[in-house]
Every structure is written in structure tokens, then in C-alpha cells.
């Protein structure tokens, strides 16, 4: 048996998808400790299911139940990470040192980043912050009878790129099922030149939005919200009136002090290499997932893939991120698609159909098992990712 003292100390800040998978993948070879500010692990995509289905089932599990035996868990808030001296400081000023550190605490949602959004979210909720706010959305969509319903994007760098589209399409489904759709004008306002930022995937999505009667406003970055007069003003200088509105809030980096200062950018995200997740010149420090500038999409799949890359790199393998995204997208009425791209290929035109919806839901229902048992799922995902490479899909769907 390997003596515990011989194993190197690996600290993981954050027990989300990236942190938990990394911990479970490393426990054989390292003395792993996960530090998380809550005893729970949240499955954030469930916020959409709460907001438009009132379904809370997959929202959270206790983090300890998701970590493999042998992983140490500390429930505390990390105040500071000093990369130079290899010290992590907790909220009570207790310090921990490490041989390796991975920082994966996710984002901070800042409603106040958009003038008036704090008030707006109190009224209508949102589906990017908390289950409480998501449940407000459900109240709105299940009671609204007429008027204009708006979803506007205030920050293009939000979690889950397809979420605003899923939001508006699922709201449409609710309104249709309630029989009030004809009396509700639905508007999706986005900062981009077209409905979906990636031109190729837009070819899949725009016809669906059109078919469902959703009006899209382009080049509209929500900037100010006047909750008295129910108006949103965009950065580009246009106005939009609403009866009910959800503005996707501003996302910032984690509230953790990181030394040296140039390890974080002006929005608090951690500067990490997009191929290796390494932070600056520190070959013993990595940033994974939403908190890291290396994540080209703020999604669990990206965090998962990055965790696997880091787990291989610290064992001496030259694994690299391909920038693969795999964003399952629900379109309502049991239809779905995936946004699949990588650093070298734009998003493929994966068609919207029932099979893709089933795939999406199977992923979601298997989520907890995927976190707990990387050794079981890794080979399955290897095959999946290999066969659904953007390069391959581009040949299939033109």
C-alpha cells in the first residue's frame, strides 16, 4: 500500500462539476482535498426546469455523496490563493498548503451589473442565479395572460450559451399549453448580429424561433432597466417595453483574492491557458471551468473535459483541451439539439429532433453517476466525443 505521506497534496477549490470530477479522478494518485463553500453540489441546468416546468428533482445532492472515498472535503469559503507561496487561506484565516492546486469555484452572479436588474429580478426572477429566482419565473409564465414577454441578454459571457433560447422556447411551450400564446408577444433580445451568435448554429435555431412566432431583436445589449415604466434600454441606444421581462444577469469571476494580481482579469476571471488550464507560469496551479478564462463555453461539459485534461497532465501526460463544446439544447415539445464545436470548427448544424432531446435528458438523468464514477463513464464519453467530433458532424449535416 502507498503511504499517505508519500502522496502529493492536491487542493481543489470548488466542488462543482469540474472540481468533483477532478477529485474523483485523482484520488488514487494524490492526497486530494476539496474545499467548497456549501455542503451541496448544484446541477445548474435544473434552474431552467424549475423556471419552466416547476421540476426541482435534479437540483442538488450533498457533495460528500458525490466524492469517492478517500477524497477529503472541507466546507468553508476560500478567501485567498497565493500561487507564489502555495497557500490557500480559508474564511477563518486558517491556511492550507499544497503541491498542486486547481481553482474551480464557478462564477459570481451580479444583478447590479445592469442598472435596474436587481429590482427586475425581484419581480420576475431569472434562470441563471438561484432556485428561488427560477421559481419566480415559473409563477410569471404560469400566470401571465397577455402582453409582452421579454428575455434579454445583458452579458454575452453567461453560463450555458443556449440557455436564453431554451428559456424563450420553453416559455412559449408553457404559454401554448395554457392556451394564452396568441395574446402574448414574445421577444428575445440579444447583443449579437443574429439570433444565435454562431452563424452556423443560427441556421438551425433561427427557423425554429420563427416557426414558434418569437420576435428576435439583434444588437440589443440590455443596459438599463426602468422598472417603473417597464422599459429596457440597450447599450446600442434602443428601447424595449415589456409586461414581464427576464434579463440574463452579468457574470463575474469568483470572489477570491488571487496572488499575483495578474492571475485574474478585470472581471475577476482567472487567466489560464486555453489548452492546458495552467495559470500563468505556475505549473502546479490550474483554473477549471466557468471561473477560468480557458472555458470557451461556461458549461459543465467544458469543466468536465478540462478536469480530465488536468488530471492527465499532473500525471505527466501531454493532454490538451480541444475546446469541445457539447451544449444540450431543449426546444420544447420533446425536441432538442446540441451545440457542438471546438477551437478549430464552428458549431455544427445538428438538427432539432426527438432523439437529441432523449440524449439530452439521458445525460441529465445520469449526471450524478457521471460525477461519482469517472472510471465507469470515461470510456463511454471517449467513444461519444470521438464519434461526435465537430469535424465528423460537419460532414454529416451540411
Amino acid at each position, binding site marked *: 500500500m502507498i503511504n499517505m505521506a508519500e502522496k502529493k497534496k492536491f487542493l481543489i477549490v470548488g466542488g462543482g462539476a469540474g472540481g468533483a470530477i477532478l477529485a474523483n479522478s485523482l484520488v488514487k494518485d494524490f492526497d486530494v482535498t476539496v474545499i467548497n463553500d456549501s455542503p451541496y453540489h448544484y446541477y445548474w441546468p435544473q434552474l431552467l426546469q424549475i423556471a419552466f416546468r416547476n421540476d426541482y*428533482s435534479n437540483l442538488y445532492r450533498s457533495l460528500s455523496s458525490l466524492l469517492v472515498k478517500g477524497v477529503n472535503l472541507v466546507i468553508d469559503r476560500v478567501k485567498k490563493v497565493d500561487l507564489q507561496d502555495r497557500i490557500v487561506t480559508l474564511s477563518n484565516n486558517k491556511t492550507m498548503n499544497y503541491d498542486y492546486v486547481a481553482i474551480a469555484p464557478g462564477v459570481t452572479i451580479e444583478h447590479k451589473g445592469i442598472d435596474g436588474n436587481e429590482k427586475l429580478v425581484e419581480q420576475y426572477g431569472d434562470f441563471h442565479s438561484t432556485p428561488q429566482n427560477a421559481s419566480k419565473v415559473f409563477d410569471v409564465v404560469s400566470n401571465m395572460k397577455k402582453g409582452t414577454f421579454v428575455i434579454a441578454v445583458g452579458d454575452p459571457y453567461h453560463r450555458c450559451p443556449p440557455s436564453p433560447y431554451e428559456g424563450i422556447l420553453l416559455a412559449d411551450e408553457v404559454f401554448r399549453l395554457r392556451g394564452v400564446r396568441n395574446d402574448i408577444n414574445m421577444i428575445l433580445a440579444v447583443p449579437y448580429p443574429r439570433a444565435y451568435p454562431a452563424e452556423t448554429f443560427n441556421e438551425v435555431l433561427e427557423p425554429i424561433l420563427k416557426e414558434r412566432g418569437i420576435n428576435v431583436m439583434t444588437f440589443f445589449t440590455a443596459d438599463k432597466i426602468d422598472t417603473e415604466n417597464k422599459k429596457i434600454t440597450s447599450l446600442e441606444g434602443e428601447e424595449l417595453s415589456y409586461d414581464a421581462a427576464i434579463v440574463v444577469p452579468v457574470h463575474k469571476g469568483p470572489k477570491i483574492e488571487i496572488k499575483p494580481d495578474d492571475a485574474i482579469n478585470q472581471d475577476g476571471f482567472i487567466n489560464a491557458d486555453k489548452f492546458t488550464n495552467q495559470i500563468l507560469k505556475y505549473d502546479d496551479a490550474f483554473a477549471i471551468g466557468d471561473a477560468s478564462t480557458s472555458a470557451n463555453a461556461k458549461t459543465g461539459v467544458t469543466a468536465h473535459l478540462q478536469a480530465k485534461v488536468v488530471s492527465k497532465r499532473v500525471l505527466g501526460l501531454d493532454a490538451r483541451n480541444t475546446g469541445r463544446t457539447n451544449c444540450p439544447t431543449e426546444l420544447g415539445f*420533446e425536441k432538442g439539439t446540441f451545440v457542438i464545436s471546438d477551437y478549430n470548427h464552428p458549431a455544427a448544424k445538428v438538427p432539432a429532433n426527438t*432523439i437529441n432531446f*432523449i440524449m439530452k*435528458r*439521458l445525460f441529465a*438523468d445520469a449526471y*450524478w453517476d457521471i460525477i461519482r*464514477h469517472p472510471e465507469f463513464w470515461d470510456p463511454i464519453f471517449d467513444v461519444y466525443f470521438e464519434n461526435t467530433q465537430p469535424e465528423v458532424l460537419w460532414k454529416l449535416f451540411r
Partner: protein
Amino acid sequence: MEEINEAELQSESLERLLHLVEMVNNILKDEELLKAISKLVVSEETFLIIDRLPQLIKLIEQLTRQENLEKIELMLSLLQSLDKQMLEKLSNAFKAIKAEEKVKPMSISKMITTLSEPEVSKGLNVMLNLLKALGS
């Protein structure tokens, strides 16, 4: 020591089993997922397939016999070699024949001028080549 390991292994596999059960339970509780699956599985087309399954199996068995497979492959290569435009012309020609139920009699002089049209002579050439190939 060995006994402890044995017990540990057993508890680990029990735990794995519990996790799998939890996942299956998640899937079974997912009403929308089940609805989507049943929509796919229970449809007019799938019922037809189930109804004709014995015939289908028989057909597949015949099709996958070695000698038949070879023939099918030959047919496929023939299909691939066919020019799409040519086929379209051919089908149009057949349609035209069908449409003109009453074929008007043609004078010999008209026939000769028609034969000298480049399109017609091209078609005749193709026909002759085909007949030659079949005859050889």
C-alpha cells in the same frame, strides 16, 4: 487483512449498484423523457413494422445470402454509374409517351428530319450501344 478487503469490495459494489439504481430511478421519473421515447416507439410506422416483422426478417435473410448480396452490390454500382440528368430525361420521355395516349401518325419526311436532330441521334446512339453490349 484479506477479509477486510473482501468486505470493502463488497460494500463498494453494493454502493455502485445503489448509484445505478438511483440513475435508473431518475430516468424512470423523467416523465418528459418517457413521453419522448414512447412517442418514438409507439407510432403508426413502428406498428406497421412490428406487424410485418416476420416478412421483414424473411426478406432480410434472403437479401443477405451471399449470391444475392453480390447481385445487389452490382446493382448498386450500376446505379452509381448512372447519370442523373440522363435518368431524368428518360423519365420525362416515358411521361410524355404516357401523356400522349394517341400517338399521331408521322410522315416519312417528318421522321427523317426528326432523326437528324442531334438530341434524337444522341439518344439512338445510346440505345444502340446498349443493345450491342447486351448482344455481346
